């Protein structure tokens, strides 16, 4: 049995490969500092044959000298020294180790392959390995983090992320930080000599701290096992997959049309549909989709209303909704007329999309619009497009900074109220076409606004297309899952 608890929430952590103060600063030093900066509460035992001290900690010359049983180890020494270090950590009781070092199978050399095989063999004797050639684990709850992640969030949440690529892991963790994703665990497993996609996916499937799983995949080791696992996990919780590196056709010379058309660019999407995974085409879409799954109720949203923006944004919303399998039901004349009593005239139109005529409609009026529109049974979710950047012009006229005149806090409060009163989620879209150096005040205000909504559990997207694509994934996933259970 793999003791994942000890791996993700270690109380005794060895970091093998930490140079003493004044020495060269390697990955081991970086990880140690990053974990300290994150406020990791466990005990850290740095190791280096030369001894000394670093960051206020005594460096042990050998793993064997550590005066405690270990839970987990970070190994960052030259590839050739890794097997001995790993063996020593196992003997010290570590349930697992992440091997940051490179110089293994990824080199394609006989020596690299042989070292990786040694790691696999040691792992089989009772220590689970993440890596080599990886960034390892980021776990907000324990404070364990990547070397380049000293300022990641300590707030835990429902999203787990799993990736071969270390770069993708840190990018996704950083994106999540501002976008509002909260992570249960993030794992970069690099070469995946021992633990890799299928086993980690199965673990996240069973992990009560994880409700949404996102993963970046380049290749998989065992197609059959992966297929069965992702199929069973997808039946329990959404698995969002970004597959990198697809080729148009198979590599071998083939005779039939079927084989010539069955390259990975076709087979992967087909397989992911078959197992009910949620397919995305890039990192931003993966993050946006994770956000929607994390913050929206677990259900379908066939009918939606779109409030705000202008005429063109309303049209774009209709197009994007349709592409995502959703509709904007036309509101009946009496409801339309009622909603229009709260909106400026002329210029507004409450047919759905609801064009509110100008960007300065007071939050109180917008709340009425949300409440009235939600009374239509066909509406299951509301999207509000708020063009907050226009407040800069108002601020200029009044001689005040944009952040001061923009009522984003009040708007966040009324939207939150509307969600509570109607029981129907609202998703915010805060576009900002003004991002240049002379508009950094707008950029900052927009991020304050995003934070205000996220603090109230309301998801925020930058573009209407992003929002509806993400909502569409949620709609499609629960639609299919429910259909399959019938």
């Amino acid at each position, binding site marked *: 049995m793999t003791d994942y608890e000890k791996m993700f929430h270690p109380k005794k952590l060895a970091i093998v490969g930490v140079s003493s103060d004044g020495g060269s600063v390697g990955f081991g030093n970086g990880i140690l500092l990053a974990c300290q900066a994150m406020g990791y509460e466990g005990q850290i035992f740095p190791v280096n044959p030369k001894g000394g001290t670093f960051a206020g900690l005594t460096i042990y010359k050998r793993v064997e000298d550590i005066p405690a049983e270990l839970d987990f180890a970070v190994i960052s020494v030259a590839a050739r020294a890794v097997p001995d270090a790993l063996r020593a950590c196992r003997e010290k009781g570590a349930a697992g180790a992440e091997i940051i070092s490179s110089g293994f199978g990824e080199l394609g050399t006989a020596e690299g392959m042989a070292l990786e095989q040694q790691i696999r063999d040691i792992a089989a004797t009772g220590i689970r390995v993440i890596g080599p050639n990886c960034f390892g684990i980021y776990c907000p709850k324990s404070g364990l983090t990547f070397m380049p992640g000293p300022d990641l969030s300590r707030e835990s949440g429902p999203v787990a992320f799993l990736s071969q690529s270390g770069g993708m892991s840190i990018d996704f963790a950083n994106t999540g930080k501002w976008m509002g994703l909260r992570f249960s665990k993030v794992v970069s497993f690099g070469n995946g000599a021992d633990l890799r996609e299928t086993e980690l996916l199965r673990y996240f499937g069973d992990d009560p701290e994880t409700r949404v799983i996102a993963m970046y995949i380049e290749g*998989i080791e065992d*197609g*059959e096992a992966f297929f069965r696992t992702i199929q069973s996990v997808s039946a329990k919780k959404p698995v969002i997959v970004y597959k990198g590196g697809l080729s148009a056709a*198979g590599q071998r010379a083939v*005779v*039939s049309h079927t084989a010539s*058309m*069955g390259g990975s660019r076709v087979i992967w999407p087909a*397989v992911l549909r078959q197992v009910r995974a949620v397919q995305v085409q890039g990192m931003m879409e993966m993050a946006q989709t994770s956000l929607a799954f994390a913050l929206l109720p677990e259900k379908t949203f066939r009918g939606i209303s779109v409030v705000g923006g202008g005429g063109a944004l309303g049209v774009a919303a209709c197009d994007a909704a349709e592409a995502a399998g959703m509709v904007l039901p036309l509101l009946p004349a009496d409801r339309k007329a009622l909603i229009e009593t709260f909106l400026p005239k002329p210029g507004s139109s409450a047919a759905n999309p609801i064009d509110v005529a100008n960007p300065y409609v007071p939050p109180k009026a917008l709340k009425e619009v949300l409440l009235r529109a939600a009374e239509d049974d066909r509406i299951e979710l509301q999207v509000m497009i708020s063009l907050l950047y226009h407040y800069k012009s108002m601020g200029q006229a009044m001689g005040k900074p944009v952040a001061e005149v923009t009522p984003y806090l009040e708007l966040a409060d009324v939207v939150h109220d509307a969600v509570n009163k109607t029981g129907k989620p609202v998703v915010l879209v805060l576009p900002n076409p003004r991002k240049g150096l002379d508009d950094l005040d707008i950029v900052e205000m927009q991020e304050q606004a995003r934070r205000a909504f996220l603090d109230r559990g309301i998801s925020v997207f930058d573009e209407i297309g992003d929002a509806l694509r993400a909502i569409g994934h949620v709609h499609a996933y629960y639609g299919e899952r429910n259909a399959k259970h019938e």
Partner: protein
Amino acid sequence: MNKDSAMGIIEAVQREGRKVLSEYEAKRVLASYGIPVTREILVGDGSGAAKAAAEIGYPLVMKGCSSEIAHKTERGLIHVDIRSDAEVQKAFEEIMKGMDSQGGAVLIQEMIKGRRELVMGLTRDDQFGPCVMFGLGGIFTEILKDISFRRAPLEKNDALEMMREIRGHGILDAVRGMEAADKDLLADMLIRVGRIGVEIDQVQEIDLNPVILSGSRPVVVDALIVLKQRRAG
């Protein structure tokens, strides 16, 4: 379903050192898995052709049949809509002449009437193993590439989804006086194609093209089965 009889055909082909089954052999493999194929008889001489024609009944189709020939249309080895004994003899001689040095025989088969052509197939993906294909058949297969795939083994729901997934799925409905396709039967065929891939390791690729809708019923009209390259020794 009879894996043993399919294996018998495949092993015989392998003993001859061949990698590609003839159309006739491929159809016997399909038939042993319960996949509907054209009624057909393989003949080697003119009198056999006459007898076979009488048994199958007019109109019929005659094809040169040899594992060496993958693209029969381009080589004038297909004669369609044959309606008399005289036409049978003429077609027989022309086809035999066209195949000259390659040997082979002539396949006499019922002519399936239908304007809707589909394709089914099987490929082995490096990561996921046997995968089944469905799509628009005939000349549209290559031009439109309107196809869908699922990993085998298929459940019925997978097969039905494959049909819904192609852009031209409307062709399976009742259109222009044509009956709606029997989707249960189509699904069953796709499941069986997948089963061949799962049960018979030697099969590397399958093309069933075209599968023609005769009214509502799909029938495999042409078939190609390619075996794995056998390792030396």
